[in-house]
């Protein structure tokens, strides 16, 4: 582990914050454009912060040509932009764009930036690909992958996952616990698309998609948009909610040979192995200080591999870590308390950042009763709602981390603290 210097004033540590978050309902069939979805999510984030359009002057988004660009949404919402940037990319872009938003503000290009992701991930462009999308011409570098029916995310990542089982004896039942635990969290999340709690048997008996991935090892594809607002700490306290302060960011950190990362092993090691040397240095904290994680769960395996390579457990012990109960609400370090991509819905990591912002405020939406101001009176009882539980707020939370995944060889990270 890199030496962590907590005294030095470096890397813009603790100088920026997220002041507002918002999303649309997670559906499979939104019945509206990504422009309408994006507008809705940004407006929700603006209302959350209590910020008027006149005080936002930056906008960033990412997509795989499946979204609507910033100028349209800014126009719709009456936001005059001093800076915008719409980039290519999926998972791991959320954290990276937050870092770039900080850079744009620090350079004096703008003052307050909205980052959004809008996608009809079920009804328009499915991540996994459909018959039509799978039939596009194959040329160039794709001749070494798509031509082999090696195409979707699950197919592409499968040699990494399989090799981890071979190298370390990781079992399907251990990995299935990621889905089991995230489904428990989702059952207490009114927003979650899948609220049903599942068992290890449910996961390992579900339809095989691509060994080692069963259907329930894979995330849900949804239509939705998500947005968050970044500004400097100087301004962050002028708004409605307690800001989530940004301690550190790492963006799109890569393994060697990212053109085809399998050339450089161990192939069961993922980008987190490299990210940890940047993110903990930047944030001035280490994995032992992190109380709640948002480890990207495009698949059950992706949460496990990342938690392991960031150093939350020894290399190779990810199977034990995810099946030990540590990640459960009420456990030592809960992961994806919203149910994550496996259960809540899918927007490339944005929803797990939004979740951690709300966790740090002490204001996740769950089934706990509300006071006269609409604030939840949390019971910290994580049993299902029908058994008298329904809470998913982590008590006494100070520091969270997001572990963003693009693919085994590329990832990003964000560490935040309570404002």
């Amino acid at each position: 582990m890199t030496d962590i210097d907590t005294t030095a004033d470096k890397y813009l540590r603790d100088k920026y914050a997220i002041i507002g978050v918002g999303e649309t309902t997670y559906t499979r069939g939104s019945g509206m454009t990504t422009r309408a979805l994006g507008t809705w999510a940004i407006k929700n984030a603006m209302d959350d912060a209590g910020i008027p359009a006149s005080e936002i002057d930056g906008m960033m988004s990412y997509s795989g040509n499946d979204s609507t660009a910033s100028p349209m949404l800014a126009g719709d919402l009456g936001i005059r932009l001093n800076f915008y940037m719409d980039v290519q990319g999926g998972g791991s872009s959320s954290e990276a764009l937050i870092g770039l938003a900080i850079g744009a503000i620090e350079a004096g290009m703008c003052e307050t930036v909205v980052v959004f992701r809008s996608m009809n991930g079920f009804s328009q462009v499915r991540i996994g690909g459909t018959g039509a999308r799978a039939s596009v011409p194959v040329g160039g570098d794709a001749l070494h992958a798509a031509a082999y029916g090696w195409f979707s995310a699950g197919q592409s990542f499968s040699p990494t996952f399989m090799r981890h089982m071979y190298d370390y004896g990781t079992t399907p039942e251990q990995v299935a616990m990621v889905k089991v635990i995230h489904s428990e969290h989702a059952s207490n999340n009114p927003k979650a698309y899948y609220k049903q709690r599942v068992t290890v048997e449910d996961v390992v008996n579900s339809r095989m998609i691509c060994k080692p991935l069963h259907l329930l090892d894979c995330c849900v594809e949804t239509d939705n948009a998500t947005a968050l607002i970044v500004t400097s700490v100087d301004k962050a306290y002028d708004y409605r909610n307690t800001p989530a302060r940004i301690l550190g960011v790492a963006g799109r950190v890569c393994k060697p040979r990212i053109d085809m990362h399998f050339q450089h092993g161990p192939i069961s090691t993922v980008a987190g192995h490299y990210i940890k040397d940047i993110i903990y240095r930047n944030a001035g904290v280490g994995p032992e200080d992190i109380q709640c994680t948002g480890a990207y769960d495009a698949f059950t395996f992706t949460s496990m591999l990342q938690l392991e390579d960031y150093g939350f457990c020894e290399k190779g012990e990810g199977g034990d870590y995810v099946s030990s109960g540590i990640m459960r609400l009420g456990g030592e370090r809960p992961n994806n308390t919203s149910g994550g991509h496996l259960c809540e819905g899918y927007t490339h990591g944005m929803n797990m950042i939004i979740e951690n912002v709300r966790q740090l405020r002490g204001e996740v939406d769950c089934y706990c009763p509300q006071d006269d101001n609409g604030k939840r009176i949390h019971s910290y009882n994580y049993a299902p709602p029908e058994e008298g539980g329904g809470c998913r707020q982590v008590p006494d939370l100070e520091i969270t981390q997001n572990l963003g995944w693009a693919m085994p060889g590329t990832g990003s990270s964000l560490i935040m603290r309570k404002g």
Partner: protein
Amino acid sequence: MPQGEYLGMTLTVLDLDNENLAYFQHCAEHDFHLQRCVDPECDLLRYPPGTACPWCSGREFNWVPVDARGTVHSYGEVHHAIQPAFRERAPYMILLVELDTQAGEPTEHEALRVAGNLVDADGNFAGPDLVKQVGIGSRMRMVFADVAEGLSLPHWTLDEEAEQPEAPWRYPQEVNGV
């Protein structure tokens, strides 16, 4: 421009894609070649085809014949195919075969790991009986599927001449008999 229909896909190598043109032309001659860096201090082979040397950034290279035999390093086994023509071939295997050539060079974690599907000795997609026999550790040799003039795809089949592991490592759960 080499172009052909293959399993419902149109495969194309553009005329200006010099690296892929040469790679697939050698494959079409059923003679596996890779780029070797010309720098005598480096002298390393690389896969997949690229425009410079990943170890020394040198842009100059020669195409050299490579013995296309190796060991399965990892795999995926697709039961729910996405691309339409692959559905009738499922379950099919995506293999990463580590070539004997240059294994463990220039560092212990590096090797030439060449992708392909599991096929029989004639180049047809493997049926369940063959899929069952292959896992991490299996010894493989390359065979080619012809797509068009100047374009064949490398695939992998069990190497009949090699000593096979008694039980190659396979994912512990069997599905539909494989």
